[in-house]
């Protein structure tokens, strides 16, 4: 559902970071925000509670440059991960072009990951999307924690359709940019395919 402004020769795409509470969605966005050249980014907006839990969404507009004569812009959003925010979480999925699922590698959060993927599937359907068809990337976050499950086990259990998988340590930026890059590429290729 990209928005193509022909007059301004601009393509705007929307990527949403999804995943269970405290898996590191906002941290992904913060790292991208800190490391991006000021001329290529807008303000990072976080609608969060006083304890820094995402209440509605985080938003970061990113200018990637141009392909040919087309300017390419990405709007990155996160959803609130906590289970009881489902009503707001659904709203963020409106008009998406791609989803990055951030999984928490800790064993104690394994079920929360599964529940969140299931929730993503349901919410996408409600918004008229099919998880099996949209550009989708899996990120295994918190790889540095001692309680992290082996990556191959997580990949086997959490992968839904053979999507690309990236290992990450979001606060240190490990795997953050790689994940975004892959999803952005998939979105652009999908746009081209539909053209």
């Amino acid at each position: 559902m990209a928005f193509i402004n022909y007059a301004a020769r601009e393509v705007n795409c929307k990527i949403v970071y999804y995943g269970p509470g405290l898996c590191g969605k906002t941290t992904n966005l913060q790292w991208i925000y800190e490391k991006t050249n000021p001329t290529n980014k807008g303000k990072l907006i976080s609608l969060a509670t006083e304890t820094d839990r995402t209440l509605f969404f985080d938003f970061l507009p990113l200018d990637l440059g141009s392909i040919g004569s087309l300017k390419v812009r990405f709007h990155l959003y996160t959803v609130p991960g906590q289970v009881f925010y489902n009503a707001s979480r659904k709203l963020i999925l409106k008009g998406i072009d791609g989803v990055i699922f951030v999984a928490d590698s800790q064993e104690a959060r394994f079920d929360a990951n599964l529940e969140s993927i299931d929730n993503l599937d349901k919410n996408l359907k409600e918004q008229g999307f099919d998880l099996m068809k949209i550009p989708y990337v899996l990120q295994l976050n918190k790889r540095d924690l001692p309680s992290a499950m082996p990556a191959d086990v997580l990949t086997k259990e959490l992968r839904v359709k053979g999507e690309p998988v990236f290992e990450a340590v979001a606060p240190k930026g490990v795997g953050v940019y790689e994940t975004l890059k892959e999803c952005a590429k998939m979105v652009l290729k999908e746009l081209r395919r539909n053209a």
Partner: protein
Amino acid sequence: MDLILYDEELREIQNLIDQLHVDARSKIVFVVDKNGQQIAGAGDLGSIDTTSLASLTAGNVAATDGLAKLIGEKEFSILFHEGERDNVHISIVGNRVILVVIFDDRSSLGLVRLRVKKGSQELTHIFDRIVEKTKSQPSAGLEAAFAEITDDDIDNLFS
């Protein structure tokens, strides 16, 4: 469905909101799509972060929409935020886009509502035409823009 905006329609939208900006004696008039993409703006746009305005407005409308459905309403078509100095009037046009008018005490809520009502009708017609055009020639513009793009071009964007 993708929305494709061409020069001709964008000019019409721009003319319309330029006029609305004057008629409503407002500071800023802004058109955003429901997904938070900004379409056009008129007035003192240099003084605000328009990208953030677009995203937050869409979030606001989406949340209010959810609230409406929860209590069995189809939608709340108008939102009004009153501030000490500036006020924000938000309305949903043709169930598709959001029209935002920011005004201070040089105007009034009554005047803004009156002008927005008239402007909305014209805006609805324009967007109906845009949707028709996108449907009837969905890839006309896109093909030209994307035809030449290779995998390398996409990779290079990230190098």
